[in-house]
């Protein structure tokens, strides 16, 4: 059972995409981090709940933002960037965008090289199998790298800025009492 999971090609293909990696990792963070905050006995109950809810909502914002907005934008733009960077590479001209390439990549798992040769043949080009394999890796790498860049931008720069005005009203509705931080006792001047 475990062996079949570990060597499952479908799991391999799924886990090779940045989108899945980001979604799973952030989802696990959304469970693990609040969970460990709630397990901490050195904090009072109210602070624990507040921090755990805040962390959970922040991670949810991260998932939504990166999967819903940033990665799709970067993914779509990846082939346009590639066309400017690698003008001589035919793979970026054969496929209009990353979605078209991904369709080809997922549909022709076993015979990608042959299928690409057929597509290239229509454009009257001649490449070795090794070249074609390299072209496929290059296009796939371009999509995944732009997705990684999008994830970094979304999770590290945009999410903290966007989550602030988004989380505070929700937190104040869910938990009306914000935990009070202990302040040093003030000296009574009149005494």
């Amino acid at each position, binding site marked *: 059972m475990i062996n079949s999971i570990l*060597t499952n090609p479908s799991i391999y293909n799924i886990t090779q995409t940045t989108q899945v990696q980001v979604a799973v990792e952030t989802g696990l963070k959304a469970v693990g981090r609040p969970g460990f905050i709630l397990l901490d006995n050195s904090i009072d109950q109210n602070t624990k709940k507040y921090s755990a809810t805040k962390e959970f909502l922040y991670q949810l914002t991260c998932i939504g933002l990166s999967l819903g907005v940033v990665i799709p934008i970067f993914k779509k733009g990846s082939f346009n960037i590639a066309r400017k960077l690698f003008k001589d590479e035919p793979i970026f001209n054969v496929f209009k965008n990353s979605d078209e390439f991904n369709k080809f990549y997922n549909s022709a798992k076993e015979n990608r090289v042959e299928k690409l040769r057929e597509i290239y043949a229509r454009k009257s080009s001649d490449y070795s199998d090794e070249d074609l394999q390299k072209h496929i890796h290059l296009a796939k790498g371009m999509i995944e790298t732009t997705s990684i860049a999008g*994830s970094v931008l979304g999770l590290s*720069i945009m999410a903290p800025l966007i989550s602030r005005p988004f989380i505070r009203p929700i937190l104040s509705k869910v938990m009306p009492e914000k935990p009070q931080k202990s302040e040093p006792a003030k000296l009574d001047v009149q*005494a």
Partner: protein
Amino acid sequence: MNLTSTLKNVLESVGKNNKPTYTVMAVAAANGIFKPISSLTDKKEKPEARKYAALREFATEVVAVPTYWACGVGAAAMGAKLFKNNPEKKAMARANMMFLGVCTAALLVIPAVCSGALYVLEKFMKQDKKPIEPARVNPQENFVKNVEIKNSADTTTKFGSIYAPSISTFVNRGGLKI
């Protein structure tokens, strides 16, 4: 080798095997830089809370980067060991185990290490920062002291006011006979 060909090689390598450690480590490293900056610029929080949040976020990501790497690479090595006799399955097991390793790091290892590290750090800081006790003031005691000081000052500085009477009003009450 120019920049374009280097970039091409990097992209081909990512396309060949998009290791989960690449993504999570890149995100964690960027989080370690930008999240503390974001916390420090949050003007709605108190300065102390801002600093604490920034330090906490920075420390979390400092822990996260090597932990992701160690868990991912360690799990991949385990996967390769499990299928060392089957080269076809070995590559697949390596990649899938690396993903599992990264997931374990995100779910359990990093939060656990961070909680432990924060616990130690807080204990350490409590030892360093002994609470400053406010000076205890007893108003009654102070009042008495002040009065005493005032009286003694009167006797020494204001000569002739109480204890050294004027000669014109002096009356010998029979205390001293010549």
